[in-house]
């Protein structure tokens, strides 16, 4: 891998400290007369370098929790500190900057900009961070190389397979050297082999110290994480280390070879 500086930046960030600290977090939505309680007092700490899988049935509150962690939504009450900073006290612009510099998003539906090349998609977060053009090109190439798509930089999303699109999305999430990757069902639209390939990338990034939070409802996908949290009815019901953790690069060897490229 020729992408040494990005990886080094990740290693550097890997010193043990709390990335996320959540206390008695509540979220409710007022729908006319009734009040829907999506989160009912969540407490959790996530340390730097952890690989957390969040699980739960739909309606369990895990999506709401993800949105709040990604600062796309604000809690109704309680405290959410990101690297020690209370997010609800930040201004809109500061929150946008937090998302831009500190959090990398990976979505189930990839969410790449259509009719925009892979390279330009990866470059986009750096435009909002006002990174100089030379540095932008350098980092975008590096990130694409990291996910094995260096030769696909000029391709449009419509010319890429689902797995490739998701890898572009991962590259995009990495370019601003974030403290945290938030992946919302990243393998939900992918077949099993491609899913494992994506997990292999996540595990590799995690080994270099990057903190990853992954929402999934697939148990085998959750087995690639180091810690599992299960939500039910707006509360955390299970919070445990993963036993018998899977190693994606080992699993790939056992899968039949498919022609993809």
């Amino acid at each position, binding site marked *: 891998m020729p992408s040494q500086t990005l990886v080094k930046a990740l290693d550097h960030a890997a010193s043990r400290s709390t990335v996320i600290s959540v206390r008695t977090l509540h979220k409710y939505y007022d729908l006319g007369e009734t009040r829907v309680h999506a989160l009912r007092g969540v407490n959790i700490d996530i340390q730097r370098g952890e690989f957390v899988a969040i699980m739960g049935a739909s309606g369990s509150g895990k999506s709401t929790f993800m949105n709040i962690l990604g600062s*796309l939504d604000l809690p109704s009450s309680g405290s959410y500190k990101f690297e020690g900073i209370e997010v609800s006290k930040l201004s809109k612009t500061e929150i946008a900057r937090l*998302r*831009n510099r500190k959090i990398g*998003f990976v979505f189930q539906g990839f*969410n*790449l900009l259509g*009719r925009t090349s892979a390279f330009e998609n990866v470059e986009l*977060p750096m435009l*909002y961070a006002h990174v100089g053009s030379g540095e932008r090109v350098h980092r975008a190439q590096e990130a694409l190389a990291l996910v094995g798509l260096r030769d696909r930089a000029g391709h449009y999303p419509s010319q890429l397979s689902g797995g490739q699109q998701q890898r572009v999305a991962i590259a*995009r999430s990495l370019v601003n050297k974030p403290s945290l990757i938030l992946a919302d069902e990243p393998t939900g639209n992918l077949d099993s082999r491609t899913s494992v390939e994506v997990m292999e990338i996540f595990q590799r990034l995690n080994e270099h110290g990057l903190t990853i939070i992954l929402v999934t409802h697939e148990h085998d996908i959750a087995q690639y994480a180091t810690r599992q949290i299960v939500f039910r009815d707006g509360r955390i019901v299970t919070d445990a280390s993963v036993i018998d953790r899977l190693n994606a690069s080992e699993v790939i060897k056992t899968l039949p070879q498919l022609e993809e490229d």
Partner: protein
Amino acid sequence: MEFASSYLVPALRSLARNKMRTGLTMLGIVIGVSAVITTVALGNGAGGQMQGTVAALGSNMLMVFPGSMNRNGLQVGIGQTKTLVSADEASIVNDVPNVTGAAGGVQTSTQIVWENNNWFTQAIGTEPSYFQVRSWTFAAGGPFDSSDLEREANVAVIGETVRRKLFGVVNPLGQVIRIKNLPFRIIGVLAAKGSSGFGQDQDDVILVPLTTEQRKIVGITWLNWVFVNASSPETSDVVKTDITKLMRDRHKIQPASEDDFQVQSMAEFANTLKQITSILTLLLGAVASVALLVGGIGIMNIMLVSVTERTREIGIRIAIGATEGDVQLQFLIEAVMLSLIGGVAGITVGELASWIVDLALSWTFTVSIPAVTLAVLFSAAIGIAFGYYPARRASRLNPIEALRYE
């Protein structure tokens, strides 16, 4: 450079994505801007043309007419009264400072006949000084002189149109024509002046000595007008005041009574013309800018559609860290690009249209730099004004809902 790659290029790309829609939206602005440019250019052209005409008549010229008069409760029209006489003219020349010359005249429409041809034209009886005052030159022959006036001689000077209509290829000098059955010998042909710019053919005229016209053709002793030359356009105001004072004095008009004459100066006339044309231009421009307004509304409409269509894209951008300002700027720039490109195209079309019209009317074509600058700024302003609301709406989208939008 950073700005260009971050905002301008993506904005252009997104406009290029839907060429038909972009083109039609721009068309509104193109029509609006070109309408404004064309009307302003034509207004300016017409104004310039009229002012040129006035200047050609002599911007230092004044005209004295006998005024309307209340006689036994009956208003008598301009030029119908007998109050302006040659003695008034002599007094103007002698007693008013800054007057370099004057010519009195009588004018009537009449039939003139030469052999089998006849022509209906204006017969002007005037003095030799008229040729200097109106700066007429001769194509052939020369003017009548003061001795012709004393003798009430039957001599005439004809304009180019009259020469062409009556004589064709025949040399008119020395030929005898008939006015009211009286014989007149042609002694001069005026050099052509062409149309006055008010649609009047200045060459359609025959000039005879003043006394001849007064006694033999019209049968009056007074004057229809006196043309006065001031020493310069700047002194014409003073000369006008002085003539008015002199005439009131001569005609023994009581301070409370109205003048029985009128003094018009070309400088004043030129100013009035200028005002009329600029009001006209403004009015036409205002009508044309309605088209521009409609074009702006078209932009707003399309930008709103575009924001709705790209809800998901906006969601992605917000998720990866675009601030409200970033999103707003992106859509605002698109709207401004739309209107600015349309504006530049509109200027091109408008200038082309006014060039063609100017060519057809043989006016001089000029590109008004202030008008072009204004049009560019105005179309950019329209982009901002009508792009602001859609851009704001985009920036206020809820990212969670936007990301879910299909």
